[in-house]
């Protein structure tokens, strides 16, 4: 035993599934030489719940709460993707009332803020800066309060329905949202004062986990990992859904494709989300109150066909691929294209040659949620 312990040449470490910084139950078998990573092999599936199988066995409205459990830190966007796919299948995408669409955008963008705040918290604490964690949670709490006021739940929202929205927003809620947006910029600046220019933070992130644009496309990356590599692509822009075509926002892209660029991208995305929310607050004033749902029959039974619909969730492209057989009120097959799963598959390439400490940074910068990876 002593012999093998001292034989440091290519030691194998099981990084996870119970590890402080694997963001859940990810397990990475890492082969290290000293502290340098020779090979890494992610092992997933510890949180597999068979969601796709469940989707095949329950009717469409019942699936919506289950989508909350995929990406449990960004459930509004998961809802949005699923109901969007079913609406596309039903062919009622255009009939959704504008007010419902705006509310969806607001929820999705709030969810993006909350998810990115959680990402910042965990990413920073992975790299040893523990204080941003508490600051971001302070602001995230306000977002969760907004969710609670809107739909009654804080985390697993189940806030969207096929054909529209169940609840309406009132002036009080919009005021609360505006108040939150008012303080949000200052809060972002506060986080950035701890990290962005900090020399230790930059040393830990600049040049770590570099993805070239070609590799990013080859690996199928989406979301900030793709944009950090300099590819200006966002589903909100490429396939505008809801009311995104009417909104003015910019897509931040990085230059070098390293961890620091992805960090900057996400910070800027939060600022853009705030801008979108501000536009939504003014836009929603022009719509009729209570006009929230398109006409959808109680039993949803789309005609035979298949549809793929994707939304830009905080982690990247979240797609739902639904095959309907036209006979049953449930999906014949519903496949989820989770961004975390695809982004995580690039991990071995990203960490090879780096140190153990950098792997933590890379896992943090990919921003995975294991509920989504394992489904």
């Amino acid at each position, binding site marked *: 035993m002593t012999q093998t312990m001292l034989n440091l040449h290519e030691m194998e470490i099981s990084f996870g599934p119970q590890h402080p910084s694997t963001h859940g139950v990810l397990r990475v078998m890492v082969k290290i030489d000293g502290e340098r990573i020779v090979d890494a092999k992610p092992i997933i599936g510890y949180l597999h719940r068979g969601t796709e199988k469940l989707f095949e066995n329950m009717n469409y409205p019942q699936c919506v709460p289950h989508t909350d459990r995929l990406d449990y830190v960004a459930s509004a966007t998961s809802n949005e993707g699923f109901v969007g796919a079913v609406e596309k299948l039903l062919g009622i995408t255009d009939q959704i009332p504008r007010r419902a669409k705006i509310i969806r955008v607001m929820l999705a963008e709030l969810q993006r803020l909350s998810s990115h705040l959680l990402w910042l918290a965990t990413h920073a604490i992975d790299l040893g800066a523990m204080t941003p964690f508490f600051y971001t949670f302070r602001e995230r709490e306000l977002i969760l309060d907004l969710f*609670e*006021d809107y739909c*009654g739940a804080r985390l697993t929202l189940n806030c969207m329905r096929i054909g529209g929205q169940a609840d309406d927003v009132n002036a009080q809620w919009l005021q609360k949202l505006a108040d939150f947006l008012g303080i949000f910029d200052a809060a972002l600046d506060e986080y950035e004062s701890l990290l962005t220019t*900090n020399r230790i933070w930059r040393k830990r992130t600049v040049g770590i986990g570099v993805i070239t644009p070609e590799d990013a496309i080859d690996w199928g990356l989406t979301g900030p990992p793709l944009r950090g590599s300099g590819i*200006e692509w966002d589903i909100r822009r490429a396939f505008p859904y809801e009311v995104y075509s009417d909104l003015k926002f910019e897509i931040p892209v990085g230059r070098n494709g390293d961890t620091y660029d992805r960090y900057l991208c996400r910070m*800027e995305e939060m600022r853009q989300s705030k801008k979108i929310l501000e536009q939504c607050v003014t836009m929603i004033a022009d719509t009729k109150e209570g006009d929230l749902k398109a006409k959808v029959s109680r039993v949803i039974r789309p005609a035979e066909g298949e549809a793929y619909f994707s939304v830009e969730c905080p982690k990247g492209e979240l797609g739902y691929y639904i095959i309907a057989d036209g006979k049953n009120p449930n999906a014949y097959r519903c496949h989820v294209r989770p961004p975390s799963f695809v982004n995580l598959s690039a991990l071995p390439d990203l960490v090879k040659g780096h140190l153990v400490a950098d792997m933590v940074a890379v896992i943090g910068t990919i921003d995975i949620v294991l509920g989504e990876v394992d489904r």
Partner: protein
Amino acid sequence: MLVEAPKTKWTDRFLLLDLLTGLRTTWRELWRKKVTVEYPENRLPTSDNFRGMFRFSYERCIACKICAMACPIEIIYIDVGEETREVDGKKKKIKVLNRYDIDVKRCMFCSLCEEACPTKPKSIWLTTGTYELASYDRNELYMNMQQLEYWEGRPEYSTLEEIAAEQGITEAKALPGKGDSK
């Protein structure tokens, strides 16, 4: 839109300004108001439509089973019997709820059952503002209709108006279903 690192002058780096700004942030935060809510003494108020513990009303329920059908994880168990009863001198068959159980421990509080409930005010609703549901025994969280209606710590109500007030309905309408059948 290309995001780039803010440019820092070498003098700033020499004077460790990047580190000092961070120190200044934490120092200022040291004197600010804290956000901790000390839980058992203070609780965060729940919003009006917070989805918490169930409440069931036997009086309102019309035994239509729609909630059980809407439930994504099938944790609502309903048995409905029929009974002949004399109403206004006529013999009439009416539906009787024999069993209404919810396996609360498995519930994910999606409130689809509440949404599906056709009565007004709802016969099953989650807006009781109660979230302290932990139990030492998992069996305690399998609740029958009496437990669902009279659990400890529930908000008090006795009349239809009060239920309506609890659910935020301003004008309580006459109930369909049971009221009509009598």
